[in-house]
Each structure stands twice: as C-alpha cells, then as structure tokens.
C-alpha cells in the first residue's frame, strides 16, 4: 500500500476513538448527527484495529519458530475473517444510515474517512470531492482528496488538491512541501521547484519552533494497514503466502483472507499436525524452555515418522538451543531434502551456516532459495544481510531491492535506509537519492530520513531540495542539531553567511560538541567581519577536533590490533592471538566482549585459570549468558566441578527463560 504525505487534521480517527465509549450509535431510523457520524467512524476504526491485531498474530505464528504454530495460523486467519466481516458490516450499516440522512459535507467527510481506512480509495476520493463541492471552504476536504489521489497514484490531481488546501490553510507549511512532492511525481519539475522554493521561503528558521509545535511532531499522516516504524527490521510473510499478502497491500482484504485460508492448508506447519503427538510435545517442551525434554520427544517423533520434514526442522532448533551446532545443521539439511519446498528450513540453515562461519555455504543456500522461492522477501533480505557481511555491496543492494519490492509487512524504512546507505558508499548517488526518497515517502514523520536525504542532495549540488528536506526534518524534530548544522553548511557553501551563522548557532545551542556546526558558525562569522567571535568559535572547533582526532587514532590502533589478531586466528597462531587481544584490552577496558574473546583464546590454549579470570571480568561488565557456558567448561577443565556445575545451571536456566519468553510472545 503506497504512502501519501498529507498534513494531519485534528478532527479524525485517532482522537475520536474516545467518543465510541461515550456516544452510542443512534438507531437506524433516527436522524444522524455529525457527532454520531464521527462516532461511527471511530467504531469502524476499532474494527480495523481488531483486524490488524489478528494480522499481527498471524505474522508471529507464520514464523513457525517452535513448529506448533499451525493451529495458531488457522485461528489467526479465522480471526481475520471474522474481524473483516464485522468491519464491513459496520461500514454497510453506516452507508445505510447515511442513505436515509441528508448529507452535508460533514457526512461525506466521515464516510470518506471510513473508506480511506478500509482502503477503498476510489470511493473515498468520491466522498471527499463531494464534500469539497458542498463546502469549498473546507481545507480538509481538499487535503484528503490529495491523500486519496496520491494513494491512487494520481499525483497531478493530488497536487491540485494540495494547492487548494494550501490556499485555504496557508499556515500549514507542510502542505506546500507535499504539493511540491506530488508535482515532482507528476513529472512537472519546474512547478515542483517553484513550489519547493515557496515552501522554503514560508519557513524561516525563526518560525521553526512555532510551526513544529503546531505540527506536533507528525506533520504528515500515513494511511496504511500497518505502521512503518523507523528502526524496525523488515518482516516478510513466507513465500507460500506472498500472493495473499500482496492482495492485502492492494486493498483486496476479502480476497486476501480467502486466499490465506487456502494456503494455510498447504503450510508444513499444518501438515499432519496432531496435538499430543511427539512433535507437538517436543514443540511444547521447547516453548517451555525445556530443551532436553524437547530433544527426547523430537527424536522419538523422528523414529516413528522419519520422513516428516517438519520434525527435523524443529529438532534442529532444539539442537541449536543445546549448542549442538553441527547436528542442527545436519537436521536442517535433512528437512530440506525431505521437503524442498520448506522455506523456513532453508532460512534457518543459512543462519546456522553463517553462525558457524561458513558464509560461502550460507550464500549458496540462500541463492538456491531465491530461485526456489522468488517471492520470498525474507530470503532476499537475509541474502542481502549476508552479502553485506561479506562486503559484497552490489550483491547486497540488489538483494535488498528485490526484498523491498516484495512488500514487507513492516521495516520498509529500515530497508530503504540500508539501500540508500549502500548506494552512497558505492557512489551511486542517483540510486541513493531514489532509495532515500522512498524512505521519506514511507516514513514522512521520520526527521532523520529527511535529513539523510537532504545530505545527499547537498552533496549532489541540489541545494533547494536539500534545504527543503532539512526544513521538513526540523518541522518534525525542531531539536535536531545535526539538521541545523546541515543548513549551516549549505548556506556557507552558498555564501549566505548571515543564514549560515543563524542555523549554525542554533545547532551549537542544541549540541555544543557538534564540530561541523562550530566550524560553520566560526567560518560564517569571520566572513561577516565578526572576527573575534569567529576566531573564538574556530578555536572551540579546534579543541573538539583535537579530541576527536585522539579518539579516532585510538580507534584505528584498536582496529589494527584486532585485525592482526584475526589474521593470526586464521593462521591458527593462538598464542599470537592472545597476545594481540591482551594489547587490545586497555583500549576498551569496559568492553565485556574484549575479555570474552581473550578468555576464549586462552581456553583454547589450555590456560584455563587465565581464561576464568577474563570470563569473570566479562561477567562483571554484564556480558551475555554464553560466558557462563565458557566458565562452566573452563572450571571443569580445572577440576572445579562445583563451580562448573553452578555456571552450567545459570547458563541453562538463562536459555530456558529466553525460550519461554520467546514462546510466550509467539
């Protein structure tokens, strides 16, 4: 479902949820009041949230982590079905009431909102057009026309609507920005540029705080089934369900749910599932954190049905949790051999191979999986991550782009950010701008997304577009020192020293340690003839730079030490590795992993007493639970069996708790 960027109205959806509690829906025969209409809208939105809730449950279940999710998949789909039916019933009821009522603009707006939420865009647009015809002074009618038009990929219509909205509501600066964006999409670059310049002129820095306050941190609204949150990794449905989820993104919810019902029957999670059999018991034990019990049940399940792929897959999970990596890999290979259509097993196998340091094999598994499951977004995404680890940037970005085209449920922001970053590193700036623009489109209220795009525009000499993005970033987050610094740098380059000083001063006020802002401020002041002030800022910058330089030098030294250790490790020269890792410790004395790494090498060398010392230091620094396993092994080697047992129990308990927490959430 595509994103539109339209400034938010106060009078819609979220805030009216409260009315559902206090204002009952009037009987059909009575005249509908505007309050009742909006209460119905809020109720319809609640239905939507129930539908979304069921969708979230389904998504979690589809991961198939424990192998017992088959019934959950079915029940989630049933919940989707029921929620959708309720939702549509409430809309029908609303439509029926409105047919009986006179219909001022208000009612068209309300019905339009319901349709918008339900992804019935053409109908929504029709209602908003009618609302604006009945009451041309309503800016919100034009705004929502724009939203609907944008979602229908009608940027020209959207731009026209935004222009009208802007003329009726000139205080809403974001309307101009959105209009410029739609004009650009409509292939009208000159008009887009002109509108962007008007936006820039309408938002001097002195007015940012007030404008941002009015916008409340979210000047744009996105209409979508699931909210795209910044920083969230992408989640994809399994390839088996890809076409059903695609129907969802296209707004064909009924068709999507019907399709899901058909597909669930083919899901390996439901293949021969029987509550109470050994597989079910094994899954339950795993979910409960009882790995040993799980292993016993699953092995028994395999004895009785050795060709059931799903059992092998879940046994692999149990082996993994039991730190039996090789056996885990072996079981996954068996699962795939028995059921080549098992996408989950392939993904797990690639993860296991990667964890075992067998990146080449992991790559091969994922590449084969992309051929077997071209619609598997998760496979493409995981392949992209692997390529990134292998420093194969071009392959990584290709895989990520393929994943992005496969409609992740969430995580598009993260995905486009990653794609954009790789393109920047590779010097493909046009592609970078394209990806970062898409990121902004899916996350218009993400200030950092706008700022990053602005920075690339600045690098590419597209000053107006850069400034536009920086200003929008400030509308969302007026306390972003980096954004003000970006504006300072831009104005400095343009020779606009007054503006550069103003922006840089704001940046410095927010973050006195921001070097770029100090430098821009000092440079601007010097060029304005304010020599003493300028020199003072440059001096401050020099101090900050010297500190940064010292930090960077230490980081480089540490990096080289670790690199040398890595090379020694490849050669199997563990003595040398230990020596190098010991050198690294003073550079990061509070880094638990440094002690863990050194301890592991010492353990390998049989120097268990020293290993224990380092592992305990790591524990003091809040290292992860794996340290307990390492301590258990080292203590055992030292003959300190009680200490060994104690740490082994801590490790096992921690893993059980983690599994139980994971099982409880899924």
């Amino acid at each position, binding site marked *: 479902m595509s994103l539109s960027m339209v400034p938010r109205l106060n009078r819609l959806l979220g805030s009216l949820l409260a009315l559902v509690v206090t204002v009952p829906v009037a009987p059909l025969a009575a005249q509908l009041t505007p309050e009742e209409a909006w209460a119905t809208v809020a109720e319809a939105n609640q239905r939507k949230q129930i539908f979304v809730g069921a969708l979230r449950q389904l998504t979690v279940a589809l991961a198939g982590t424990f192998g017992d999710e088959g019934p959950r998949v079915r029940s989630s789909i049933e919940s989707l079905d029921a929620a959708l039916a309720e939702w549509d019933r409430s809309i029908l009821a609303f439509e029926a009431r409105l047919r009986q009522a006179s219909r001022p603009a208000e009612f068209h707006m309300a019905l339009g909102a319901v349709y918008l939420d339900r992804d019935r865009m053409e109908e929504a647009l029709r209602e908003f057009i009618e609302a604006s015809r009945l009451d041309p002074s309503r800016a919100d009618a034009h705004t929502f026309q724009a939203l609907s038009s944008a979602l229908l990929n009608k940027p020209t219509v959207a731009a026209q609507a935004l222009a009208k909205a802007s003329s009726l509501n000139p205080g809403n600066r974001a309307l101009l920005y959105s209009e410029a964006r739609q004009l650009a999409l409509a292939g009208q670059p000159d008009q887009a540029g002109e509108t962007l310049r008007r936006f820039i002129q309408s938002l001097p820095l002195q007015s940012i705080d007030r404008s941002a306050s009015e916008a409340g941190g979210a000047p744009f609204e996105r209409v979508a089934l699931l909210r795209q949150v910044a920083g969230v990794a992408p989640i994809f449905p399994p390839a088996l369900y890809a076409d059903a989820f695609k129907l969802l993104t296209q707004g064909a919810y009924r068709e999507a749910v019907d399709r899901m019902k058909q597909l669930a029957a083919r899901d390996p999670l439901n293949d021969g599932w029987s509550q109470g059999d050994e597989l079910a018991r094994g899954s339950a034990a795993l979910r409960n954190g009882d790995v040993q019990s799980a292993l016993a049940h699953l092995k028994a399940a395999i004895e009785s049905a050795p060709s059931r792929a799903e059992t092998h897959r879940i046994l692999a999970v149990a082996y993994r949790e039991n730190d039996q990596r090789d056996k885990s890999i072996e079981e996954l290979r068996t699962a795939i051999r028995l059921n080549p259509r098992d996408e989950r097993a392939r993904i797990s196998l690639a993860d296991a191979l990667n964890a075992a340091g067998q990146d080449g094999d992991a790559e091969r598994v994922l590449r084969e999986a992309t051929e077997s499951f071209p619609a598997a977004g998760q496979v493409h995404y995981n392949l992209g991550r692997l390529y990134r680890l292998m420093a194969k940037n071009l392959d990584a970005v290709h895989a990520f782009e393929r994943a992005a085209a496969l409609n992740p449920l969430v995580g598009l922001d993260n995905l486009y950010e990653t794609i954009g970053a790789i393109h920047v590193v590779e*010097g493909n700036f046009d592609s970078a701008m394209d990806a970062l623009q898409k990121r902004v489109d899916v996350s218009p209220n993400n200030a950092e997304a706008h700022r990053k795009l602005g920075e690339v525009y600045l690098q590419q000499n597209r000053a107006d577009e850069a400034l536009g993005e920086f200003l929008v970033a400030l509308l969302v987050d007026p306390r972003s020192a980096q954004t003000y610094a970006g504006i300072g740098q831009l104005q400095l380059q343009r020779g606009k020293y007054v503006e550069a000083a103003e922006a840089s001063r704001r940046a410095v006020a927010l973050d006195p340690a921001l070097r770029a802002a100090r430098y821009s401020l000092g440079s601007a002041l010097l060029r304005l003839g304010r020599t003493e002030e300028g020199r003072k800022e440059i001096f401050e910058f020099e101090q900050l730079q010297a500190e940064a330089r010292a930090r960077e030098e230490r980081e480089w030294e540490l990096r080289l030490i670790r690199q040398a250790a890595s090379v020694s490790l490849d050669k199997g020269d563990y003595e040398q590795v230990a020596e190098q890792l010991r050198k690294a410790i003073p550079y990061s004395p509070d880094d638990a992993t440094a002690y863990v790494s050194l301890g592991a090498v010492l353990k390998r060398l049989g120097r268990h007493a020293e290993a224990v010392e380092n592992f305990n230091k790591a524990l003091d620094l809040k290292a992860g639970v794996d340290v307990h396993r390492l301590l258990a092994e080292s203590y055992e080697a030292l003959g300190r069996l009680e200490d060994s047992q104690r740490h082994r129990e801590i490790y096992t308990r921690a893993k059980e708790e983690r599994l139980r927490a994971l099982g409880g959430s899924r």
Partner: protein
Amino acid sequence: MTATGTRARLVLSCIVAIVLLGLQPGSNAQTTADGPPILFEDITQQAGIDFRHTNGASPDKHIVETMGSGGLFLDYDNDGWLDVFLVDGGSLADPQAAARARHRLYRNRRNGTFEDVTAASGIVRGRGFGMGACAGDYDNDGWIDLYVTSDGPSDLYRNDGRGSFTNVTQSAGVGWVGLSTSCAFADIDRDGDLDLFVANYVDLTGGEKYCGDNRVRAYCRPDVYKGAPNVLYRNNGNGTFTDVTKQAGVYSTAGKGLGVVFGDYDDDGLPDLFVANDLVPNFLYHNEGTGRFREVALLAGVAIASDAKPRAGMGTDFGDYDGDGRLDLVVTNFELESHNLFRNLGGGLFADATAESGLNVATIPFLGFGAVFLDYDNDGDLDLAIANGHVLDNTSHFRANSRYAQRNLLLRNDGGRLREIGLLSGKGFALEKVSRALAAGDIDNDGDLDLLVTNNGEGADLLRNDGGQRNNALVVKVVGKQSNRQGVGARLRLVVGSKAQIREIKSGSGYLSQSDLRQHFGLGRATEVDRLEIRWPSGRIDVLQKIAANSVITVVEGEGVTARTPFAAR
C-alpha cells in the same frame, strides 16, 4: 522537388550541420572560436619517452609502492626548450628490481622527440625510494638545479651547466631522511636566493602495519601512522642550507604532507605556503615577513571542507580561476570526497567553492593526485587538469564500483563553472591509468600548454595540445638580477582591454611535480598585450606595454624584454 521541399531540405541540412558542429546551445563540445575541438594527443612513444616507473609492488603492500612517482618540466640546458625529468621508485622487497630503478632525464630535441641523457647527466637513482622532485636555480648561476625526494635520503643535484649534475646533498646540508614527498623552492626571506621546503608524509620508523581484512591485504591508510614533520631549509647563499623548520614556525607532527605549493595568496609580496595533508587538516602558512610563518588554514577556510571534515589532500595548485586578481586554491582528494576548490575572498579568507563551481559532482567518483591550473584553450581564463588513480590495486574488493586505473580530468572554465570535458578532448584524456604527477608546459613552443603525466608502475604520458594555439597567447620567461635568477615568486599581471590575468612563478606544485617556469597567458583573439606588470621578489615592479602576442619573451629584471622568439609553427 518543390520550392517548399527544397527549403525544407535546406533547413534540415542546417540543423544537421549545427548538431554535427556541436554549436547547439548548452553543448559540451569545446571548440575554439572557429575550429574543431582541442585534443590532447598521446605522443609519448613517438617522443621517445620510454621511462617505466618501478613501483616495487609486493604482497607486503609497502605504502611507498602506491605513492609515486613524480615528474617535471625544466629547461636544464637553457636552450629555450622544455626537457623532462622523471623520478623512479625502487623496491623494498626485491633488491634486484631496486637496483634497476633509475631516474630519467630527457632532453628536448626540438623536433617533437626527446633524447635520454640520463647517463650523461650524472643523475643516478638515489639511495632511497624515489618520490618527487622540484627544480630551482638555488645558486643563481643561471642553471636550474634539481631536488629529488624519496623515502630515505633525498638528494640535491647541482646543474654544472655542461649537461651534467653533481650530487651536493651532503655539502649543502639538505639530505633529509624520511618519507619525503613534494618539494618546492621559494625565496621566503626575499634575500635573492631560493630556499627549499620539503613535505614529509608519515613516520614509518616503527615499522609498517598490516592493513586490509582477513582475505586481502591492502595498502594502509595514513590514519594508522603518525605524521612526519616537514622541513624548511633556508639558503645561506654559499651553496649551503640551514634547517630553519622550527624557528620559522613550520614544524608540526600533525601533518601528513603530500602536495605543496607556494603562492602569495594575500598579495603582500611575500610567498606563503600551502601543504595538502592526507586525512588531517591542510596547512596554510602565512609568511609574516620576519623569517617566520603562521599557520592559518582553519581561519582562512582551507584546512578542511565545509562539512568540517579533513580530506585526503593529495595534490594542490594556486591559480586565479575567477579572474579577480587573487590566487585561488585547488586540492585533490579521495574518491567520494570530491576535490576542493577554495575561492580567495581577500582579507585572508577563502570560500569553499567546490559546489558552486560544479567541481564536486564532476570529481566525486575519482581519486585525485596531480592538479594544475592552465589555460589549455588560450581563451584567457584558467582551466583545470587533474590526474587520477586509486591507491589500492585491489580497491574493488572493498568497494565494488571503485577502480584502480582511472581517467584524468580536464575541466574547462566557463565563467567560474568548471565543466568536465576530458572525454571530448582526445585520446590523452581517455587513458585510464594509475596517474600521479601532472605538469603543464609548452614542449613544442607553439603557444599552447602540453601535459606530462606520470603513472604508478608504468610509463609516463606526454600529451601534446593540438588546437589550443588557434587562439593567441604569450609566454613569458623572466630572469632575475636582484631577485633569484629564475624569478621564482614573481607575480605577473597581464592586461588586455578590461581583462587582467595574474600568474605567479612557482617551483614545485601539484603532486611530486613542477610545471614550466615560463608563464603562459592565453589571449583569445587579442593580438597585443596592453600591459604586463612584473612584481619581482626583490620588490621591484617592471611594467611593459604593447607586447605583440604569439611569442616567447624573455624579461630581465630592470631591463625589460631582452629576447623575443615567435611561436614555432606546427
């Protein structure tokens, strides 16, 4: 054929002609007023320049292997024709290869070919791994001398005037040992003789580090080493020099010097000094006139780019690209950093003009080394040439789109906007090599500037300018009397109508290189220069009027034009 049809065909023919001639508005074709494009032809082979740089590339990835080497134009035999000197490297891993490496001196035969006169010159490969060179008549005997930098001891060769040189490093006291890079002669104290500045890169005394990743070793970034201090030698006037680095205020271990250029950026008559440093802020040393310099790069706005980050400063040059009478500055940087152009605002300040000039977008994909301002098309404004080439021979392992061999750039100056036209400028700019030094000079005395490019691990390129001389020009050779013999540091200001151009005579600029000491001025269609002012390092100002174009003139301090040679026809 009807009359209408005939006319239509005529119109169509005109359109086709216009398109073919590239005369449509906004065309990137670079033409003289009435001719085909100006092309740079690779004449290396036919000229007989058979030098091949020994970079000593080895699996150990010694940092010096990827840095060199230098090359320069000089007229060592004073016959009025530019000769070529090329620095060779060596090998830290293979003693036999090291023994085979030797610098080369080529004498211009005046017929488009050059003769290897190295053996007769007495210039042997130095004791270190050769880097760069600069040339200046330090003893004012009328014969240009040579300083060759290296990783190891650097060497001073005094020109005996008989086609040979003598290594006088020890007696002169200029045998700095370290990783020296670019150098430049200048009369910093205006006492009439040339002093010497040598840039140094990093301190390798602690041994070289392992860089790269587990699969592949790579040449190290400068970050992993501490900087080495530069050296300033003051000429004592008796064939010896004194190290005055500290007392002159130019001692610093914060730098990692690669490119060097002297220039009077504040027009106070004293040579100032810019040092391009690699991944640390650049240095701009303002000559205080008291034998001391004050480092002012940060205040001036040339230490770092406008985003407050240091760049990988490699090559550099001063030149007045915007024609306002003030020296501007170019610095070449790493790929994805873009090269920097700093516009002189006056008052000791520069503006970062990288974006406004268009240099950023044009240069982002390239890793630059040598840079030179030159008026290649003789239209009266300074254009820019840049030599590019990566430092990592396995760079695509780390970044897929990165290339080791890269093409060089020719940026034409269109009213202060620099438009890259290399691919339209002949085979010379289509070559993709690992280029390093870049020098400009008129090797055939035909009035346009040719180029010398050195390439790491392979032959140098001599690129002849074909077409620039269709516009008029004037080449000025100066001879100092109270000032140093070659007039290094002299400021020339040439006026034609309402337009003025300035040049300064520089020994050593760009990266590891030096251009023709004669000063070239493009005059467009003008056939006469209204006025030429020469501000000598001694402080004397000579003014010449009504100088005919299209010749090489010799101007002696206080005596005016003493010789005039028309450009050679070609």
